[in-house]
């Protein structure tokens, strides 16, 4: 149980603090500490009800007085830090005058960021047609005819024996046909798959594929490149996991998972409590692919990787329905300023 002496001591301490305060926030903190809802003087006042009537009167008066004194002292001290008085017709709280800026579509925005990251690592940009031949989309990439690998990519066909490319990897073949190693490219672009439209799949999507062919390129180089990209794009502390997988045009092939950037791998809604997010596919370019474009696959090796731009955008912005990306609703697009 505190006595009146305690109230005086607390007040003296508080006034000293007010005297030496150097800023408004400091003064506000002093207010909270002593006369806030759980402040020291406030607490003293709360104990009054337990006291005999006489003591309660005297003690209550002292504590109340201390509270008022401190409030006044703080109010005075605040004046020291106030700026000059404003002209009443000058209202700085009206919104600033601004020409509203437009937003870049989240697909292009995400793609731009991915491309930029690889550009800084020295990858050139190569492009190819959306309407492709069977050869560049499949055969040239070591998809044998009548092989179940064809079922991995449901294909749209158009007249003239052509198809809508199911990945941007055909550009790899087109590029390798034209140039001599070393060659280091990414191939961003639009791709199409004849899959039922749902919250997770749409008939059109975008990929950024990339590849490097040179003498002495190893799987360790592939890992280095992708670790660099994922950390650049998703954050320094990210962990990566390489799992064996299968693509006809790479061998060995891998899927790359990153530790969930939302929960740091602890498990959350975003990563479906796995702690990992599947982010891209990669591998060493299959010798058959190199041989088809006339490279000596004993001398040259290469790696390739590919990622879905939409998948990355959905993860990054935590969008649950891929269709939002294609509706062109400005209420959605304007969130990506």
């Amino acid at each position, binding site marked *: 149980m505190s006595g009146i002496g305690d109230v005086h001591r607390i007040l003296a301490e508080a006034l000293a603090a007010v005297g030496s305060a150097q800023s408004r926030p400091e003064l506000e903190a002093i207010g909270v500490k002593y006369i806030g809802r759980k402040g020291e003087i406030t607490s003293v006042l709360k104990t009054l009800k337990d006291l005999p009537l006489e003591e309660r009167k005297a003690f209550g008066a002292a504590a109340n007085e201390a509270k008022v004194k401190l409030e006044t002292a703080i109010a005075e001290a605040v004046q020291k830090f106030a700026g000059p008085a404003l002209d009443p017709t000058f209202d700085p709280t009206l919104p600033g005058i601004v020409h509203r800026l*437009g937003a870049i579509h989240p697909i*292009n925005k995400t793609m731009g960021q991915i491309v930029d990251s690889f550009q800084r690592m*020295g990858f*050139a*940009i190569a492009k190819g047609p959306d309407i492709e031949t069977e050869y560049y989309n499949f055969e040239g990439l070591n998809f044998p005819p009548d092989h*179940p690998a064809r079922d991995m990519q449901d294909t*749209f066909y158009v007249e003239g024996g052509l198809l809508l490319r199911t990945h941007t990897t055909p550009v790899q073949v087109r590029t390798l046909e034209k140039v001599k190693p070393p060659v280091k490219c990414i191939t961003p672009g639009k791709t199409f798959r004849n899959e039922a439209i749902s919250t997770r799949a749409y008939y*059109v999507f975008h990929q950024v594929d990339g590849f490097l062919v040179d003498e002495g390129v190893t799987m360790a180089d592939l890992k280095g490149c992708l670790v660099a990209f994922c950390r650049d794009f998703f954050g320094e502390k990210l962990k990566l996991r390489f799992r064996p997988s299968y693509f006809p045009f790479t061998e060995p092939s891998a899927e790359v998972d990153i530790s969930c950037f939302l929960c740091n791998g602890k498990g959350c809604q975003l990563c479906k409590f796995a702690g990992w997010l599947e982010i891209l596919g990669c591998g060493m370019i299959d010798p058959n692919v190199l041989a088809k474009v006339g490279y000596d696959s004993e001398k040259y090796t290469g790696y390739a990787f590919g990622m879905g731009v939409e998948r990355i955008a959905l993860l990054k912005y935590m969008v649950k329905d891929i269709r939002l990306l*294609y509706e062109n609703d400005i209420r959605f697009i304007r969130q990506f300023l």
Partner: protein
Amino acid sequence: MNVPYSWLKELVDFSWSPEELANRLTLAGAETEAERLTDIPFDNIVIGRVEEISKVPGSDHLTLATVFDGREKLAVVCGAPNVAAGQNIILAKIGAELKGGFKIKKAKLRGVESFGMICSERELGISDDHSGIMVLEDSFSLGAPAFEAIGLDDHVLSLDLTPNRADLLSVMGVARDVACLAGSKIKYPTYMLEEVRDEAAKFIKIDIADPEACPRYAARVIRNIKIGPSPWWIKRKLLLCGIRPINNVVDITNLVMMEIGHPLHAFDYDRFLRKEILVRRAQEGEKFATLDGKEHVLTPEVLLITDGEKGVACGGVMGGQESEVSDKTTTVLLESAYFNAPTVRRSRQKLGLITEASIRFEKGCDPNAVEKALDRAAYLLGEYTGGEILNGVVDCYPNKKYPVVIKVRPERVNAVLGTDIPKSRMVEILQNIEYGIKDRGHLEVTVPTFAVDVTREIDVIEEIVRLEGYDAVPTRDKNKGPLFSPYPEDEQFCDNIRRILTAQGYDEIYSGGMADKKLLEQVSGAQPAVEILNPIADDLTVMENTILFTLLKSAGHNIAHRNVDLKLFVIGKIYKPGAPPLEEEEIGILVTGKGEDTWYNRGASLGFHDLKGAVEAFLGWNRITVKGYEPAARPALDAAESMAILGADGELGYIGAVGENIARLFDVKQKLWVAVISFNKARRGIGPVKPYQPLPKYPAAPRDLAVVVDEKVRAGELLDKISKEGGSLLESVSIFDLFRGKQIGDGKKSLAFSMVYRSPERSLEAEEVNALHQKIAESLKEGFGADIREA
């Protein structure tokens, strides 16, 4: 592929939990999840026996069963059609919780009290079967906790297989990887096959007319079999694998397929017209009914197994209805064949069927597993159907497939992977998955025929790194490849367009590339479009041939959602038929509605001049000249407000108001203004970077000029005239006011110009400027009948 955890435990010694095992398999190349067979709690679910049954009065389907649970008799009302006295069943007692959270409580049905429930497989969460209650063998002790007693207290591993892992389409195949990862060996089941003296070859003759499609066909004959239910251990394994038990013969063929991975088929031998097998292509139009009851009209793409007269099975896909094993079957012809993968793929595509057999053959089976599967199944048929196995396998194997031998250079393995794996470790890994190895400096690797995808050194490298773990590959952070890669000019142009238009307040939309054919025809004026032969939806049948379509569709979507004030742009591909088809990019811009209301400004209605400003801003910023605009009709535009945009070398695109009838197609009633510009034409117009102009040394002389002219006089004409008359001393001219009103009369407008005069060589005298300014004013009076208000 579903693999029971307990089955793997039978075959391999390992100590991992189901979850840990799933993780190990995932990291070795097969994405695996482990789940309990059922998610219901096991409490209060016991083995019981139906002692007696009676009808529930007033119900045509309810039965009152007296069930003994080992301690007491309980009255249980049951709705299943197959309940009968003497059955061992699974009883959910009061307090149990079944699939879907269904809680068992004391209940009253038609006035009869019930103290539990006799369960179907679906209610227990172990399959979808709800046709009746689950009836057990008599061997389980009454009252025992049911799941443990019958061995369904188990986990199932579901493996999501990539097309190259045909070797994992069996429990044995998965066990092989598990053994390698755990450093142990598979315990193969052992058995003794007992054959009777009669030779199978006397009962069946095999001929293959197309040995490429069917390189091997082997069969056994088993007679005096008795069709019946399988023993529980077989049913249990099938249930765990997600396969419905049917009868002992069919179950055994399925069990062996799951165990070894080789599909088998059992025929009712007595249904064969001729006692032979002829494997041939189907004839065009040949009819055949598969055992699922479907009638097919075949083509030669389908490989048909015949009895020399008629079809009995579609090779590698499904058996025929007529020769299907039935309750009356006594002699079984057991097929174990090897079909070529592309043949089975084409057959099943033609038939529109995907079966457990077709999945395996299509991914690639092991021709040398034919006999092993046949013997194993024959043994089990002998054990569990009472059948007699005739002597010998009738085997037609014209071209034997031998294991592939591959030269593997350990240094090459490390060179591709960037690793330092010792040769001895490579040997160990490969031997663990049953590869034969001879060390001859390099490794001579004999690949077992079940590893159908391993044919080259690189395939072996993949096997090594897969099983060593990808963590064994270091992360090398040295940059490789060219030092520098330029940023393409097209990309720069795109970036610049985006930069300028977003700065002007335009939101970027996205073009999906496909359109509704009829709608696109109206928008494009029936321009040809690339048609999609297998469209995904009725409104996505052609490729977009004008970006205008995306603009209109997006405006329609937004306006329908009450986003009526829009400033949109898109850079998107358009496609035109040709050989090869033409693909090019277009830049589309659209405005409609009005600008934003703010405290300092009322938003004005958006129209042509906003659009013109945006077009000139992004073109100008990219040093692309716009020479002017001239009226030009476009199919989707209102002819009165439709113009071509002219660049230095011809048309860049067009700009104008969308025709009302076209806007209506997209449910839009408000006025839409659009501009469409060819990316390539604009890009070709990009001018050189100009050298800097020295800053002026002499003062400027500003003057204003306001004139009233007829409405029909265009501002541009006046500007041109002013520039021409002003000559080299007129530095700039701009319009700072436009006014229409009663004061100046109907059909008139007032335009105010702000001019700046300056000479680069000297200070201009006031008189000189005034004279020139006056001369300009006079020229407007003469040329356009302008009334000079202020000069």
